[in-house]
């Protein structure tokens, strides 16, 4: 059975791109979220194997969402998606419970490697 992924990003563009990359490698996208609040709700509802999480989103940012999700499920596997220049935030996200990170613009091979690390 393919492993399931919840994709969280406020840009449809980015969600489409991440979904395409992951689907091409055999993962199943079971949900998408546009805000931190949605990400938490979708996580609780769908219980995905993996979450990809943008840092800057309206409503609630990705780091706060990571905190909430790991409070709910300590084993949640979350991969941060950050832009260049956000290294400090990535550190904060890892401290909050994220397992790894990739930097935009995405290199498909890097994304897949990171996903395999997080799931492995």
């Amino acid at each position, binding site marked *: 059975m393919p492993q399931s992924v919840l994709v969280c990003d406020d840009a449809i563009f980015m969600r489409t791109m991440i979904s395409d990359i992951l689907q091409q490698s055999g993962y199943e996208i079971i949900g998408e979220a546009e805000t931190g609040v949605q990400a938490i709700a979708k996580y609780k509802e769908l219980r995905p194997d993996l979450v990809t999480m943008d840092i800057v989103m309206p409503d*609630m940012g990705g780091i706060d969402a990571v905190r909430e999700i790991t409070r709910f499920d300590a084993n949640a596997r979350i991969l941060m998606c950050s*832009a260049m*220049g956000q290294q400090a935030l990535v550190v904060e996200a890892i401290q909050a419970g994220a397992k790894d990170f990739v930097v935009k*613009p995405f290199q498909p091979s890097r994304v897949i490697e990171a996903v395999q690390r997080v799931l492995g």
Partner: protein
Amino acid sequence: MAVPGIDLARYAELFLSESREHLAAMNRSLLELERAPSAPEPVAALFRAAHTIKGMSASMGYTAVAEITHGLESVLERVRSGALQANRDLIDALFGAADVLELAVERSVQGGSGEVESAPIIARLTSLANGTPVVSPEQLRVTSAPGDDRRATGRREVRIDSRRLDSLMNLVGELVIARDRAVQLSRGRVDTALEESMEQTGRLITQLQTEMLQSRMVPVSRVFDRFPRVVRDAARSAGKDVVLEVEGGEIELDRAMLDEIGEPIVHLLRNAVDHGMETPAARAESGKPPVGRLRLTAIRERSAVTIRVSDDGRGVDRERVLATARERGLVEASAAELSDEELLRVIAHPGFSTADVVTELSGRGVGVDVVLSRVRALGGSVHMQSEKGRGTTVTLRLPPTLAIVRALLARVAGETYLLPMSHVCETVQLDPAAVKRVTGREVMLLRDDVLPLMRLREAVGLPAASRQASTVLVIEHGGHRAGLVVDELVGQQDVVVKPFDAARGGAPIFSGATILGDGAPALIVDVVSLLAHRA
């Protein structure tokens, strides 16, 4: 760097539409920031928009866009941390950056990257940011911005290329025509099964048509969202202080209609700022609040959408307009006053605006003229109310959809012409005995009223016929009535209006064309031009 291993062309459309949304949001936030320079929410929203566009553009390999948004981020960071103040200069720079960014976004997608002169704006942003582009976590934590969660609703939406929607609409139109033809062919055959099947097909096509029309509807905010910025810029350059309030942004119009109506509304808004609104000093003198109020309202009525632009400016000076109109013979020399309707007619008269007597209207004539013709071409109407010292209101009434019109089929010299029902009041038999001539023109007595007559045969450029014309259609628009004489009336039906390029040099009395049930093409008569022609 662009991402290898992914077909980027597929993402270009997505990038464009999403970036446009964010650019609109940036303009909204900048206007908010200008009104409340110390508010944190607009800065957070601006940062988010710039950040999102940056992320997307980097993935697409659009370097210019990525650089501008990066510069914006750096400046906004400093505003957020309190190191920079959102003063007038800074906000102007941000507005300027948003404009360059918009250009860069559009150009990038067209493929000609590097054509946008982005270096000056990046230099300006960099100097504002003063070389401190490092982002710290405290600064970046995103606060919530109310009103920016409209895309977060649960409904699932799909983006479709608008050309595909147009071609689907065309196909549905063809289907309607084919149905009418099939109905005609099956007429007179006694076959219950065939009849039932035809009826069901007809119902389904009607449903399909309704759904199709619905799918083309978009909220007017799609176009209205950029107007506050337009008004702000116009007010700035005119040395005035004006706030635009928009109401009814959720009202829906056919996308094609909305595309057409945007420019006329910009005309009206600009006119209101340039000519309607007084300077802050003049407003204070006449006891008005210094900030002028401009309202743009959309209202859905039963069978029309009304768009209203109203200002609380100085209003039109009727006496001066009347004096000029008399001079130029636009009204009778004896006219003592102008009704609202006459006022609009006079102001919209081509060239009227050049009259230097009416300084506050300079330039207005051109705009109103354009607005009037555009709205009429869409099957709508324009009204204007103005009160000296209190302000002016211009009201546009539009059909919510473009594509389908209920029309009467009239025949002249063996050809069928269509008249939109919305402009036909009644039809009467032509009684040759009731036709009189007044100052060389034909008129007819209709229940004690004198109705000017027009012959469609002549209007379409055919010689007068020996054969007796039989029917008069009483057509009306904006208080003007006339009787249109045709050979015979064949019926009525819903017709799908096809885009139509009028022959050059010909009388502009047709607004479109359609294909009838029997496959023959037919022209749709533009009643408004026809009446204007006569006047």
